[in-house]
């Protein structure tokens, strides 16, 4: 251990553990929504019930082993956390082998080549899984029950997890609870999700004022993707800024771009693309613009 020989009670393992604790309820809800319910309704076989757990579990294991191969350390690590989070956000229709291959290749390549540019790995891996789905003509986030249009849900139902979203992230309410829990950890960048959602909401309200359409905003705020990505992916410590003004710029840009992308592309990918783009842009700006802002203040 380096000097000093006393350490704050929170270290990287505790930070990762906190994330894992709050992800468990989301995974359990995913198991219920995309596993148990579908099995009861006769849409999937018994083996497919475990898919919502299998994706994050496999993601975590791949991350763990990639870290072990490169560092020879058997411990909680960020690759493992990334694997779990990505596993939770993928589409119900994604082939499990494609998921394993993409995840292993990207995480392995990032470890191997020690890329100087920071970018949000989770968003990049997600983007590649989406491309794979498009190539295989299976692009859809809806499960068989949702595709059948058997039930219609209110925004309140959607807020509590009935919406169409990634395999384990549809429950916005649990994501909000997770955010509240993580906010008590000093190392969590709690202002980033708030600023992203605030910017997104302002954009939505402006859009409402112009077009008189309120559904896009309410849809995004309740279906889970926006809140989950803001709480868990945009706050990825390694690829997000930590200085006050940098964080504001980062969050506002993500909020603006994700609104733009949701309108231009679709509601499932907008925020991920925005995070990926902004986390990449930050490499060019943090040295010059952010330093100048800091010096001025």
């Amino acid at each position, binding site marked *: *251990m*380096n*000097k*000093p*020989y*006393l*350490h*704050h*009670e*929170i*270290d*990287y393992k*505790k*930070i990762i553990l906190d994330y894992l604790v709050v992800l468990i309820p989301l995974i359990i809800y995913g198991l219920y929504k995309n596993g148990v319910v579908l099995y009861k309704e006769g849409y999937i076989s018994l083996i497919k019930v475990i898919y919502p757990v299998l994706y994050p579990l496999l993601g975590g294991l791949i991350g763990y082993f990639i870290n072990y191969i490169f560092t020879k*350390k058997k*411990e909680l*690590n*960020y690759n493992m956390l990334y694997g779990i989070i990505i596993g939770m956000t993928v589409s119900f229709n994604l082939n499990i082998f494609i998921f394993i291959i993409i995840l292993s290749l990207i995480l392995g390549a990032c470890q191997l080549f020690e890329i100087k540019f920071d970018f949000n790995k989770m968003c990049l891996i997600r983007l590649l899984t989406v491309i794979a789905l498009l190539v295989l003509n299976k692009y859809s986030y809806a499960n068989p029950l949702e595709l059948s249009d058997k039930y219609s849900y209110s925004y309140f139902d959607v807020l509590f997890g009935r919406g169409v979203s990634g395999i384990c992230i549809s429950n916005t309410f649990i994501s909000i609870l997770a955010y509240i829990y993580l906010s008590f950890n*000093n*190392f969590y*960048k709690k202002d980033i999700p708030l600023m992203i959602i605030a910017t997104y909401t302002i954009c939505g309200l402006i859009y409402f004022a112009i077009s008189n359409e309120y559904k896009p905003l309410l849809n995004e705020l309740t279906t889970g993707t926006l809140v989950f990505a803001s709480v868990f992916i945009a706050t990825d*410590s*390694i*690829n*997000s*800024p*930590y*200085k006050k003004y940098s964080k504001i710029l980062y969050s506002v840009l993500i909020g603006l771009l994700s609104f733009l992308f949701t309108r231009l592309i679709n509601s499932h990918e907008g925020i991920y693309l925005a995070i990926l783009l902004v986390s990449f842009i930050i490499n060019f700006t943090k040295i010059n613009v952010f330093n100048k802002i800091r010096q001025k203040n």
Partner: protein
Amino acid sequence: MSSLITLNKDYNIKVSSNINNYLNPDYVYIPILKDYKLLVKNKEIVRKEQVILINKENTITCPISGVVVGMTDCVLYNGIKSRCLVIENDFKERMFKRNASRKTLNNISFEELLEIMKNKHVYNDNNESLYDLFKEKVNTNTLIINCVEDEPYIVSEEFEARTYINEILEMISALMGILNIKNAKLVFKNIDRDNIECYNNVLGTYPNIKVVLVPDLYLLGKRNLLLKHLSIDSNKVLHLNIHDIYKLYNIIKRNRSISEKLITVSGDGVINPQVFNVKIGTNIGDLVKDNIKLKDGVSCISNGLMAGTIVDYKKLIVTENLQGIVFTKIKECNEIKCIKCGKCSEICPMNINPEEILHSDESKNREKCINCGLCNYICPSYIDLCGKVRGEDHE
């Protein structure tokens, strides 16, 4: 500036309330520092307070009487190895020159005080000449006496304040008279109940001396941060540590240099944590062997867990800069890549951003580092930021 924090320490580690004397070591070891000239030879008989080392600005006196028996390698508080003069104790405490002590401190003039400071080359704990400090700070409003110990599990200064309470108050009162200072404030941590009680009981006879309590925050032992915390302009006060006051008492009233020192031996690796009154030059290995029960597999850290250094206690010797030693089991922690949480720059009391410094050649900010260890303490990735900021990894 960042707000100061309370350290994550174990409040169950308590030091025995009695001071144990260890004043008769068989040998004492005096480090021969750079630029010092040795004034004694091998086999020469030396007496207590005899000058044995000298340089242009300072002298080092012998803490015991005995015989010079040779030289050996020892370790100093900062882990640096040093050649030391070995003096065998004859246990007679024969003084080189018995100087008469003063009956009272009240009749000393400002000029006389300055002369003593100049002749005896007295420095405070921050290594500033007290001659210059007194000259500059005469007629200031307030005298601040800092009794705050920063390092967890080290309580030497707190014990010093309590043990020498009469001497300290007499010296403070005299200094106030000589330097024409109207008020004095003794600053204690609010958890230092023994000292608060002791001083509140006797301060009735010193109406101009007040006790000020501060929270248990790390780095309030540092002058600038304490004054900032108390919202006091540093130009308007004279700041001294409790150890400076006791040192002044010995020099002015007793007319002798300090040959003894309070040392804390504590930590979760010690079964019986204690404070010892030891001769300067005592080998810590001898002290521990005779008095301390250690747990298995513990390491010794001199001067505390935050700013201290791992040392081989068997070779460690007591010098004026050694406040105490902490025995603890060092946990193995894996350093990982920086996760850019920004806590190091948020916590740094000197407003340095260690993460930025690592990627630049900014030497100005590097020099600002006070080696407090807070960046390393807070870093969740266990990166040795402090060492890297100070360039220690390149040495």
